[in-house]
């Protein structure tokens, strides 16, 4: 039986004596490389957007167990057998094929925002995807929500980009089409690639814009050729310098392959802030499930692809020591109707759950379960509880630490922030400013001890460099209430300053540690 998050925090904790000396297995080489790159916190963070194209059926992805009886009324030909579900809390369960995301949820790296949508749902794929891409309900909006963020901070793009300060693409779309989310005022900020190991050497063109539509196309194409070559070189270099360590990637899972490329580029030092991947097929009007077995069919295949790919990617990100720098989010244009149709499928609906992934996740499940009525109401979807634009705004605030006034300027409505991805942000030492995590001796040479207090709770102790990048996880466990002393060996750690961070359900503590030469 798999351990659930809900069970996990109730477990009797292990004693601190059982904690191992943790530094011996440390991989010094990649860490040393990372120390030479300059970046701090939010500037160095990466957001991965996964578009579930077609409108994902939330109710068969994340089943609200407290609504199960009514779901059997609403969707008798789709309902997943209760004993097949992967229970993650007392009232929620994943689709049976989503073992990967279940594991990530249980270890605090997948989160859920319930009932995400927008007012007055538009059930057109096209209009609704436009709304989700632009982050605006205004039908005249053409810029993407990430595009506005880029425009506000790097105005004038694409003129004079790339340059020495911004040598890399701001965003990368995996595939042949740039993403509407990154559409800026003058150009799209995303750069489309299919394989980062391809080299680009397109014949450049010198073109004058004659002021017509044709002329603007000429300028667009000439700029695209130049950018393709320049960005192509950066991407190629990063892909070759980078690495991928997880063995969970399935080479037949196209989404996983794309995420693996992304891990490779991030670990190779590419400064791209946003990556966008896409998975088609969620418009499951028919044959969403096979009549013979509701746990199989098109939707199951899609969810397995998604879950396995995110699992492999997060595994890789952890092995690469990048887990505090990478976060992700899924989005889809709408959920589907509560009741199924006769074709073993579902028609266009309204709100649905949205998934976040990352090590800095703040809230495992945000929002209450949807309420499923006990009678079929023609065409009914789930009402929205969380406006997707507030999810975007909260991600900009938590993850890229964008100024709230600037964030507000990207949206047409009054923004509400939710605690979604801010768990790694600094400045939460403790209420009084007194350190309650101690490193002694400090400065230290070959050995040190980390002392802290906790309640009976899950605790994770991390060694970070000054750029807040993870070097090593020292503790990741449930601990008993009281004081704990964690001994660490430092002989293979380079001389310099480091950060020790203690993450607990009850709050986060950090302090600096100075490593000096042994006398």
């Amino acid at each position, binding site marked *: 039986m798999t351990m659930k998050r809900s069970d996990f925090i109730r477990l009797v904790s292990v004693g601190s004596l059982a904690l191992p000396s943790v530094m011996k297995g440390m991989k010094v080489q990649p860490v040393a490389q990372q120390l030479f790159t300059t970046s701090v916190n939010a500037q160095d963070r990466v957001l991965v957007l996964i578009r579930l194209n077609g409108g994902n059926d939330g109710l068969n992805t994340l089943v609200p167990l407290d609504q199960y009886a009514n779901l059997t009324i609403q969707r008798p030909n789709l309902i997943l057998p209760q004993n097949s579900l992967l229970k993650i809390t007392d009232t929620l369960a994943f689709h049976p094929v989503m073992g990967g995301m279940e594991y990530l949820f249980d270890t605090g790296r997948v989160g859920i925002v319930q009932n995400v949508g927008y007012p007055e749902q538009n059930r057109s794929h096209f209009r609704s995807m436009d709304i989700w891409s632009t982050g605006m309900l205004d*039908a005249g909006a053409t810029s993407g929500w990430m595009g506005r963020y880029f425009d506000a901070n790097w105005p004038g793009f694409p003129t004079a980009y790339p340059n020495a300060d911004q040598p890399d693409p701001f965003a990368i779309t995996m595939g*042949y089409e740039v993403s509407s989310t990154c559409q800026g005022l003058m150009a799209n900020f995303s750069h489309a690639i299919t394989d980062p190991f391809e080299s680009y050497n397109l014949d450049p063109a010198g073109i004058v814009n004659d002021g017509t*539509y044709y002329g603007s196309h000429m300028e667009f194409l000439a700029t695209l050729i130049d950018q393709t070559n320049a960005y192509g070189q950066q991407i190629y270099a990063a892909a070759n310098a980078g690495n991928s360590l997880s063995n969970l990637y399935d080479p037949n899972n196209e989404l996983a392959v794309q995420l693996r490329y992304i891990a490779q580029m991030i670990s190779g030092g590419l400064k791209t802030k946003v990556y966008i991947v896409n998975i088609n097929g969620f418009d499951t009007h028919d044959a969403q499930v096979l009549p013979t077995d509701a746990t199989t069919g098109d939707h199951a295949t899609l969810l397995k692809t998604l879950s396995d790919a995110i699992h492999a990617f997060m595994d890789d990100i952890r092995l690469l020591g990048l887990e505090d720098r990478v976060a992700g989010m899924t989005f889809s244009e709408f959920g589907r109707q509560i009741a199924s*149709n006769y074709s073993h499928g579902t028609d266009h609906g309204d709100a649905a759950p949205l998934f976040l992934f990352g090590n800095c996740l703040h809230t495992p499940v945000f929002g209450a379960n949807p309420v499923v009525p006990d009678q079929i109401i023609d065409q009914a979807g789930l009402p929205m509880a969380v406006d997707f634009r507030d999810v975007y705004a909260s991600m900009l605030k938590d993850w890229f630490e964008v100024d709230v006034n600037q964030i507000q300027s990207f949206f047409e409505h009054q923004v509400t922030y939710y605690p979604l991805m801010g768990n790694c942000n600094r400045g939460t030492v403790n209420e009084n400013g007194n350190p309650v995590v101690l490193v002694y001796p400090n400065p230290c040479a070959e050995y040190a001890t980390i002392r802290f207090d906790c309640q009976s709770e899950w605790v994770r102790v991390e060694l970070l460099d000054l750029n807040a990048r993870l070097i090593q996880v020292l503790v990741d466990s449930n601990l008993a209430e009281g004081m704990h002393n964690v001994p660490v060996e430092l002989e293979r750690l380079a001389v310099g300053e480091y950060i020790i961070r203690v993450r607990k359900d009850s709050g986060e503590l950090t302090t600096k540690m100075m490593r000096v030469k042994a006398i």
Partner: protein
Amino acid sequence: MSPNQTAQTPSTFSLSPYTGPWTEAEAAHLLRRTMFGPTYQQIQTAVANGMSATLNTLLTIPTLSPPVTWDPDEAVVPQGQTWVNSVYPSNDTQPTENARLRSLASWVIERLNTEQVSIAEKMCLFWQNHFACEAAFDSRATYNYLMLIRQHALGNFKQLVKDMTIDPTMLIFLDGYSNNVYSPNENYSRELLELYSIGKGPQVSTGDYTSYTEGDVAAGAKILTGWYIEGLRSDTVTTPYAVFENTLHDQTTKTLSARLGNAVVNANGAQEYSDYIDIIFSQPDIAKHICKKLYRYFVNFDITPTVMTDIIDDMAQTLVSNNFNVLPVMQQLLSSAHFYDMAVRGSIIRSPLDMFFAMYNATGSVPAYDMATNGEIWLNIYWIAGAAGQDYLAPPNVGGWPAYYQAPSFSRLWVSSSNLKLRFDFAGWQTAWGGFNINGNPFSVDTLNYLANLPQPDDPVAIVEHSCVVFCPKPVSQMDKLVLKTILCNGLPDFEWTIQYNDYVANPGDETYADPVRRQVALMLMRLFKFPQFQTF
């Protein structure tokens, strides 16, 4: 219009007939917009014939031969005969279906590659983008769907929508076959309104899209209940067909919203869908949606308020007053002053198919081997076009290809960095770097044939001039022409080309003379096909 595509305003906003000069620039513009790859000779013929006669030729849809068997996996029909009205084998239909699908896909490409001076293939692609069906799992049904489009390519829009509503491929594509009284499936009902006929207006309140409502989507689903398909992959039925079953049909009276005139649709069996479509087509704004799409496809993406009132509204009026016949609308649009305005020339970026068949057709490059080899070559082109973003029998979604509808970028969506590389690589491969080789049978851009059909193939200046007329929508700078001529002559004086060319003509069959000529033209075309100017039309 979008801020990143700023451009001068056209000076002519009128569908009144174009009366300006008729030179090769205008003729080439018309042919490039209505065909995939007009040749230099076709352009000259159009100049000589004048606009009106050229348009008459263009607006004729030629007859077409059906696809034939060439793949060895076909188990029923002999090689070289058509399978479109033939049964499937009694067991294991899949190999035969695979063979038929390959035959069908190569036939689609053959049609593009061998197009005549006609708007037919451009119109068929327009409708394929409009209805956007994927190939059904019975290629006979897919063939019938493609022929339905072709039958109405310049015909009656309303009748096309009616026929499409009960076409087996469409019934499969949007689940009409499983839409019945017990559980209506909204998939087709929604797209019928949103995409195929009246189009979706701005949402003004929950479920109200100005031109129709969510209630109409639900009512439409009920109206459309009761249809299913017989004969799919059958070993006795020679072509699949739609069947109406009244017991599966919703017999209630359906009331539409005020947006559709509060119309009442009474139960009327197999004719009810037709009654409903009559109601949709009686709405005052019915024609604007399709006219906007025609305008974007044939003229320019930018529908400003002026274009809306002075062009689209007039097109819509023409369509309605001609009882939804498309031909008069195209006739009016393609002979209008606005269509020839300099501001809209070169305003569309070529799709992969536009690009590929500009390369092949304008150079007269058509494979001429046995049917199986030709089929393999066309099938390969089909897959590469798919990889480049334009899989003819599998549009990316029910709205078609985003480059035809997605603001603000529109046709720029055909050329991302990854896509541009693929296009450039393809251009290089099909000119200078070898091309296809199917079982020892090569196929690529036929440079010698191209040269032979230019008026002055011994003159490098003329070759460059004529190539720019054929491949580029606007005049090319002297500098770029010099680049092309330098490549063609390999940096030598012009007369060296003349000597080389004359030697080649004087020594037919001698590869030592032919090969350098072939190579130099290939290198020139390769460069030209990577020019930004060539990427638009």
